């Protein structure tokens, strides 16, 4: 139990996927303008990450390893993630049109979100069992959402401030993200 908690909190804080591993930077800046959309994005990523890591773990353990096809890991995982995202897109469009409109272009972009692929590969590299994999995936997604929401909260405030023109928008967001990453590295020490 302690071990699972360790994996979870390590993924959320210490080894935060965005701020420590620098994975999933595209949605980190793309969807972090409003807290609402960043929460929605976080939920979609959580759904995709959990499902993708379970399926990739099963495929690695019961298909690739027995057949000695470890070298096909990347392409197979990408295939899994891409189809999953398509599935989630169809699902969200049916269940919540509002969320579908809010996520817009970024739902298909999870397809190429390296955080999902990185998570799937890390699970294998760490030799996690299925339970640890799920906990790790949820932790990673929570960490991703946390980073996104923090940045969105700061950017919402920044929009009301008088920012020098050269820094307005993405440049300032990059600086803020850097400071955030520094702050998160405090967990490690």
């Amino acid at each position, binding site marked *: 139990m302690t071990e699972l908690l360790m994996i979870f909190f390590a993924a959320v804080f210490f080894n935060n996927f965005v701020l420590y591993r620098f994975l999933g930077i595209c949605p980190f800046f793309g969807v972090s303008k409003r807290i609402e959309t960043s929460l929605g994005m976080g939920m979609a990523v959580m759904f995709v990450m959990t499902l993708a890591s379970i399926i990739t773990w099963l495929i690695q353990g019961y298909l690739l390893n027995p057949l000695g096809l470890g070298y096909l890991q990347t392409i*197979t995982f990408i295939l899994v993630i891409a189809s999953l995202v398509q599935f989630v897109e*169809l699902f969200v469009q049916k269940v919540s*049109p509002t969320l579908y409109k809010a996520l817009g272009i970024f739902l298909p972009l999870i397809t190429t979100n390296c955080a999902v692929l990185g998570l799937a590969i890390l699970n294998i590299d760490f030799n996690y069992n299925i339970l640890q994999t799920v906990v790790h995936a949820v932790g990673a997604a929570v960490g991703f959402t946390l980073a996104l929401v923090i940045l969105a909260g700061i950017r919402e405030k920044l929009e009301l401030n008088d920012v020098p023109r050269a820094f307005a928008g993405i440049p300032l967001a990059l600086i803020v993200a850097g400071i955030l990453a520094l702050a998160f590295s405090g967990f490690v020490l």
Partner: protein
Amino acid sequence: MDYFRDIAVPVLSVGGLGLIFGAILAVADKLFVVKQDSRVEEVLEALPGVNCGACGYPGCGAFAEAVVSGQAPVNGCPVGRKKVADELSRIMNVSGVASDERYVAKLACRGNKETAKVKMVYHGIKDCRAANQINGGPKACVYGCMGLGTCIRVCPFDAIGMGNDGLPVFHSELCTGCNRCRNACPKQVIRMVPQSTNVEVMCNSLAKGAAVLKVCKVGCIACGKCAKVCPTNAIEIGDNLAVIDQVECINCGKCIEACPTNSIVRV
């Protein structure tokens, strides 16, 4: 045989995975299908597709959805006029709502280079909104058109051109009544008038008569002569400006003859 195994196994496993996922997606596509009213697409196709927003909806797509759900009238597109309204009423199966009356933009100012005085020479950005920030613009009359052409640039239909006299020329046959020029004009000197009526007071000045005469030869001085000669009492003087009620106006043109400053014209 080893070569065969080395090639066939990876190809089959990855290909098989692809097939399985493809099948799942195909099923999901049918299972989670979102029923969209087919009329939305039909309506969208009949619309001009300029996304100008003149209907009050954010773009043609939103308007099409509003029409199909009954929130917007079929003649709600001011750009498409009767043609689109007829088409939409055919798709939506309603009748008798299409009207050919349309509003076109007109410049309510005749103060050109010769008739209106200038109080300063403006060398700033060629944009009315910028010029208006500097003491109300270069013209002596703060209500009049500055002629820097912001309306020309915002018009998506090329319905406005610049005349030789320094005032924009509005081509009503190209105007779709989308209101963009009117919203962009800092002087609010552009008016939407029904196309069928054609007598208008082409002055925007709310200044007193004497003040108008000082800065412009063709401004309305609110003398009231037009109101006196009007056979249908369609003209009213308020806020130092004559206003013609276009519902009452019969286009007789008597006010045009009576106006001492020629600020009433056929447009």
